[in-house]
C-alpha cells in the first residue's frame, strides 16, 4: 500500500516537474540573473515541492504553477536575505547560437556582439518589465498565467512585454547606429 502510494507520488511529481520546470526556471532567472544560482534555486524549489507533495495534490491542477512559483519566490527571498547586497549584473560571454546569421565572419562577429548587448539589456530592464518578459520568452507562459504570478491584469502584462521588446530593440538599434558610425568615420 505504502509502496504503491510512493510510486503514485513519484509519477505525479515527475509530471508536475516536466510541466512546470521551464517556467519556474525562467522566473528564477528573471530574479537572480545568474544561471548557476537559478539552477540551484530551481533544485531547492522542487525539493520543497516534493517534500510537500500532499499539499500540492489538494490543489487544482490549473493552480499548480502559482503554488510552485510561490515556493520559488520563497526560495529566492531566502537566497536574497542570505546575501548582504544585491547581485549585480555581470556581462557574460556565452557561446551564442548564431546559426541564423549565416557564414559571413563579420556578420557573425556583429551578431555575437549584439547577443551580448541583448543579454545585458534584458538583465538591466526594471523588474516590472524583465520578469513578465522572461516568463513569456523563456517560460513560454501566456499573459493570463503571468498575470496570475505577478498579480496584475493580463492587459498590463502584454503592455509590459511589448514595452520590454521596444526598449530592447531601441538599445540594439542605438548600438548598431554607433557601430555603423564608427565604420564610416
Amino acid at each position, binding site marked *: 500500500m505504502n509502496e504503491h502510494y510512493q510510486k503514485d507520488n*513519484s509519477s505525479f*511529481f*515527475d509530471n508536475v*516537474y*516536466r510541466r512546470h*520546470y*521551464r517556467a519556474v*526556471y525562467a522566473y528564477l*532567472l528573471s530574479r537572480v540573473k545568474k*544561471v548557476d544560482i537559478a*539552477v540551484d534555486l*530551481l*533544485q531547492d524549489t*522542487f*525539493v520543497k515541492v*516534493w*517534500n510537500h507533495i500532499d499539499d500540492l495534490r489538494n490543489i487544482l491542477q490549473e493552480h499548480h504553477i502559482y503554488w510552485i512559483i510561490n515556493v520559488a519566490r520563497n526560495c529566492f527571498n531566502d537566497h536574497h536575505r542570505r546575501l548582504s547586497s544585491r547581485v549585480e549584473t555581470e556581462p557574460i560571454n*556565452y*557561446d*551564442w*547560437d*548564431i546559426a*541564423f546569421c549565416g557564414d559571413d565572419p563579420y556578420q557573425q562577429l556583429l*551578431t555575437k556582439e*549584439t*547577443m551580448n548587448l*541583448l*543579454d545585458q539589456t*534584458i538583465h538591466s530592464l526594471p523588474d516590472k518589465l524583465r520578469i513578465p518578459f522572461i516568463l513569456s*520568452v*523563456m517560460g513560454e507562459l501566456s499573459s493570463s498565467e503571468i498575470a496570475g504570478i505577478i498579480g496584475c491584469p493580463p492587459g498590463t502584462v502584454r503592455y509590459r512585454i511589448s514595452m520590454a*521588446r521596444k526598449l*530592447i*530593440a531601441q538599445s*540594439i*538599434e542605438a548600438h*548598431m*547606429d554607433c557601430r*555603423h558610425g564608427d565604420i564610416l568615420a
Partner: protein
Amino acid sequence: MSDKFMNKIDDNKLDSLLTGWTKAYELPDYQAEQIRRLAKRSSPRTEIMQDNWWFKFSTNLSDTVAQAVQSWMCYGAVQESYNIPTSL
C-alpha cells in the same frame, strides 16, 4: 535607404535574436528523479528545523539548553539521512 532604416530591428529579427538568447540559457538535463533523490537526503534536516514540535517548544527554554538539544537532534537527523550508524 537611410542608415537608420538599415539598422531597424523588426519583430522577426528580434525574435531570431531572442531564440538564440533562450538557447544559451537552456537548462542542463535535469531529471525529476534526481530531485526526488536529493529531497530524500535533505528533508529530515529541513523538517526538523522548521516543523518539529521541539523547535516550537524550545522557545520556552533557556537558549543554552535549547541550542544543545537542537544540535543533538540535528546530528541525529543527519545520521538518519545518510544512514550513519548510531555508534558513530
